[in-house]
């Protein structure tokens, strides 16, 4: 296969596909809160009429997008993740969620993606706050090809959506054979446990699973790339015979992806031990690279493996 996504960020992959779609559809608009990207330059240049920069005014960005949508346009809004979620949250609730307006919010910088920028730019609560909004779809890609395809998927949706893009280039997992309609993918079957990851932590789940083999633990890996709605049927069918579930997210534990998984298990009567790895109720002024911040939070490979080994002895 062509490896055009191997060295491309999620953001550039997403915008490249959006550019193609916008060239075909003059009703597609992209609104930025003064955020750029190399791939956005051609959008701005070639599709001038379909690009609006509202300035650093995220609330107004949602409002203008709502107005556009009510005039039959497909609007995308774009900012760094905290600013396209918590900053304008009430607009997302009242205007997009409540009125079911099919605007797509594009956030870049999942988790500690903006590692050197500090906690104002980290985004570790978006899953929690976005998944409670009715009508919203939430996409959490784990590679750039997936991000590319999510441009198409969100384009067709008749309800609001939110896509959380990682800032960094992640190893490629998928190709044209995948259409991402399932909402999750089983990257590896497991006999003992299933490790569920999302976004960049899907890759951590793969590493951890490989490491666990050394301890004769066979852990499957699930990439939960659509956090809302969760494909409950496929998820429960996959994990029901395992001995336990592990979730890993670069996100606060309260209400995050792991919580969403637990809700699915409980609602479906699946009584399995669950171990969640994530950020424990704190914001961090921590630097020295993303991996260092992950280490502080116990999200590095060794900490997770250690945590699983200890937990597995108790269950």
């Amino acid at each position, binding site marked *: 296969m062509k490896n055009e996504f191997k060295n491309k960020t999620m953001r550039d992959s997403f915008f490249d596909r959006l550019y193609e779609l916008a060239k075909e559809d003059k009703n597609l608009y992209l609104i930025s809160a003064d955020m750029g990207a190399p791939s956005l330059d051609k959008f701005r240049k070639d599709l001038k009429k379909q690009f609006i920069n509202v*300035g650093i005014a995220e609330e*107004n960005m949602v409002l203008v997008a709502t107005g556009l949508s009510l005039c039959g346009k497909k609007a995308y809004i774009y900012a760094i993740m905290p600013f396209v979620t918590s900053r304008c949250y009430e607009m997302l609730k009242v205007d997009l969620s409540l009125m079911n307006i099919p605007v797509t919010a594009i956030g870049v910088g999942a988790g500690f993606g903006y590692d050197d920028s500090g906690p104002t730019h980290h985004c570790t609560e978006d899953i929690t706050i976005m998944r409670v909004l009715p009508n919203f779809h939430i996409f959490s890609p784990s590679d750039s090809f997936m991000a590319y395809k999510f441009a198409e998927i969100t384009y067709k949706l008749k309800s609001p959506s939110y896509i959380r893009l990682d800032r960094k280039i992640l190893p490629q997992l998928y190709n044209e054979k995948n259409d991402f309609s399932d909402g999750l993918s089983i990257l590896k079957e497991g006999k003992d446990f299933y490790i569920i990851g999302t976004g960049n932590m899907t890759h951590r789940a793969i590493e951890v699973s490989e490491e666990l083999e050394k301890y004769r633990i066979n852990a499957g890996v699930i990439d939960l790339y659509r956090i809302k709605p969760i494909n409950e049927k496929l998820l429960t069918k996959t994990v029901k015979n395992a001995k336990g579930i592990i979730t890993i997210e670069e996100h606060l534990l309260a209400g995050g992806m792991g919580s969403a998984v637990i809700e699915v298990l409980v609602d479906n009567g699946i009584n399995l031990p669950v171990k969640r790895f994530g950020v424990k109720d704190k914001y961090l002024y921590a630097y020295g690279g993303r991996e260092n911040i992950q280490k502080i939070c116990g999200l590095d490979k060794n900490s997770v493996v250690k945590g699983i080994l200890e937990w597995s002895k108790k269950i």
Partner: protein
Amino acid sequence: MKKNYKKYEEKARYLRRKVLEMCVKAGTGHVTSSFSCVEILVALYYGGILKYNPKNPKWEKRDRFILSKGQASPILYVILADLGFFPISACDKFCCADGMFGVHLQNDVPGVEITTGSLGHGLGIGAGMAYIAKEEKKDWFVFVLLGDGELYEGSVWESALFVSHHKLNNLVAIVDRNWLCVTDFTENIVKLEPIEEKWESYGWETKRIDGHNFEEIFDALKGVKERQTEKPLVIVANTIKGKGVSFMENKILWHGIAPKGKEAEKAIKELK
């Protein structure tokens, strides 16, 4: 020669009475917030300003009227019913389990463009609509009615910048300047005046009128769709919260409630 606005005044009186009856029956609703903007809405809906079609609420060529101060929903619901967007009987079921609508404005009611109730949303959404109308050379207009207390919301000013930057002179904002918020007069809470200077510094043309005087309202709205300036227009309309019922006028404590018992009878009597 002074024009005769009697039919509008009669309509305003009738609508106030309907609002009052509706809210008294339900035991809730923002009566006073509705009463401050009755004349403005009568001029827009009955005075030939707004284009609309009750038989086809989503008519593409309609003007978009956005009631950003969604708490004044009773007056808009009564007007829409009176114009035939839906049966007037719907107003008898205001806030009822089998009714169509409640205290704040909702977009699934025929003739209502957007859900409001939380403040600071209408101008920006109207801006998005006006942006498209301008781009596509549509001849419909966007009218947004804001409360004066709503001007405290920062999003209003984000949107105000956007509207003037994009020269959206196909959008008209009207501020219902009734001087009152929930707990106090605006100038005691945090000063809003001078309001015109604020909008002007944001690139808007301003007009200040008496929002209960039809002559002034129509004068302000006259030619509003043929303006030559690129600047958007904001009309600051001085009004009285609770206008029409003597004991409810300009009183802090009447925010968001409907009169009960003898007070209700007295209020209805004043509007007959």
